[in-house]
């Protein structure tokens, strides 16, 4: 079973620690890397891909440092960068053939694989059109297809669903679920629903540090008893939003129904409810903790 070990990994730019002493072991499964913008997710993924040098610590694949493995490690990789670019004059097919060549896939094998992947991401009809004519969602799908070239054992996807419509998101989730066997898949996002249904483990990053990691049940257990629902008058809604982490607000006939993430009961008639992953995210990334209102 393939194992990737992050051994006290840090990245320091000037005096700023973009990634700060991350320790974790990844084995087969889908890992959802959640964090706000600027949390250090992309920097961490770039280091795992070997694109960015680690300032402190080591990244080990099967016990060997990835820098030392070189092409042998890159052969295991499939990567979709956050800022995914393309050569505008390339057609979708030529683009994938080009990347297949860079992944050292023999030409005949590559041609079959490219056709298969174009079908998988629903770009078969436009395979001979130039990528510069594609919509944002189509470019993203092309990015997902290229990441899957060469059947990588480590698949790293940075914000893979950015620009995809709901139908495409579901399609993407199904593709990832189908691929998750015998692979390490790391999926970075700040959209909770992207990972809620497919991730085996969730990693929460904030300020370059790994705040919490575990399976969904473990994450949910951490905020159980800290998610509340209450009904308030419409004129009070603004004050509550300013003072609490409100994960949902809904206007009903009885008033405004709030879902609040707080350590203590925010209102005497608030009732605790079952948390979901969005509540977990909000709990860790909330900007304030206030005393309960009377």
């Amino acid at each position: 079973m393939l194992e990737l070990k992050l051994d006290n990994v840090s990245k320091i730019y000037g005096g700023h620690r973009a990634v700060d002493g991350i320790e974790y072991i990844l084995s087969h499964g889908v890992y959802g890397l959640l964090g706000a913008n600027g949390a250090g997710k992309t920097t961490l993924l770039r280091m795992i891909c070997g694109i960015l040098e680690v300032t402190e610590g080591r990244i080990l694949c099967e016990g060997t440092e990835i820098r030392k493995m070189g092409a042998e490690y890159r052969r295991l990789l499939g990567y979709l960068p956050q800022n995914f670019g393309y050569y505008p004059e390339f057609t979708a097919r030529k683009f994938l053939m080009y990347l297949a060549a860079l992944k050292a896939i023999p030409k005949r094998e590559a041609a079959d694989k490219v056709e298969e992947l174009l079908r998988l991401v629903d770009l078969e009809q436009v395979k001979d059109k130039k990528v510069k004519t594609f919509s944002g969602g189509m470019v993203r799908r092309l990015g997902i297809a290229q990441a899957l070239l060469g059947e990588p054992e480590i698949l790293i996807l940075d914000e893979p669903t950015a620009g995809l419509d709901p139908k495409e998101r579901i399609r993407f989730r199904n593709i990832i679920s189908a691929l998750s066997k015998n692979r390490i898949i790391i999926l970075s996002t700040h959209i909770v629903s992207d990972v809620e249904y497919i991730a085996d483990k969730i990693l929460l990053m904030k300020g370059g540090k790994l705040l919490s990691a575990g399976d969904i049940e473990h994450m949910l257990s951490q905020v159980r008893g800290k998610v509340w629902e209450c009904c308030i008058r419409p004129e009070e809604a603004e004050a509550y939003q300013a003072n609490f982490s409100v994960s949902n607000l809904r206007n009903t006939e009885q008033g405004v129904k709030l879902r609040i993430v707080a350590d203590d009961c925010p209102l005497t008639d608030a009732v605790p409810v079952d948390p979901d992953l969005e509540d977990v995210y909000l709990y860790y990334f909330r900007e304030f903790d206030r005393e309960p209102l009377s």
Partner: protein
Amino acid sequence: MVRKRQEKIWERAAGMKPDPQKKKKSLACIEEVIADKKIHNIPSPAELIHIQLQYISPVFWLLQGGMLLLLLLLLYQMARMGVELADYLWWSSIVAAWMGILANGAVGRYFSHGMAELEQSCCINLSQMWTIRMILTIGVDICILTLFSGGVAMCTNTFFGRIAVYLLVPFVLSNICCLLAVSALRGGRSRYTLMVLAVLAGLTAAAPSLFPEIYGTAYLWVWLCMLVLGIIVFAAQIKNCYGRMIRGEMICWN
């Protein structure tokens, strides 16, 4: 003794028949191992060059062909007019400087479309492709300039090596300037920056022709020193870029 025992074993084995179930199971095991075995393709240097040649932009080849054509036309026209060496060098130095910009512009293409990060993560990574493309584009340019130097040498009865030195100096210097722009400036990879650089390099390369005596044998050592120094600076620049690419500094701008 041993031989007799071996013969006995063979005799017994001849009468034995393999268990079909066990045989099937063993074959299934072998097939499974074969299916799991990943056969890796390791491209040879020739294949790497072929990949590069396949995906170099046609615009680059068109511009490169245009430069060659321009040099040939200049050579033909000037030979007909029977002009002096300085006149040959005036125009050809400008073209040599443009060729340096074009070569590095083609290499800089890797960084201008947001592909660098992705390419660096591939089995044949950006650093390797960059090296191959540098060798290819600069190699083609040096061949063209060398052939042209031969032509000028024949037309002006001058030593071929001397002409080559005069033309390689603007070529190397423009390479240095362009690589500096491509590697150090975020906007240095844009088409407009390259066009401005081409104009400036052309003007600088044409400047020595205002003083034709500078092409005399007395100053040849100055040209030689400039060429050697230029090559050293360019090599150091390439080494620096290579290191920054491997560390990710030249790839991850944000």
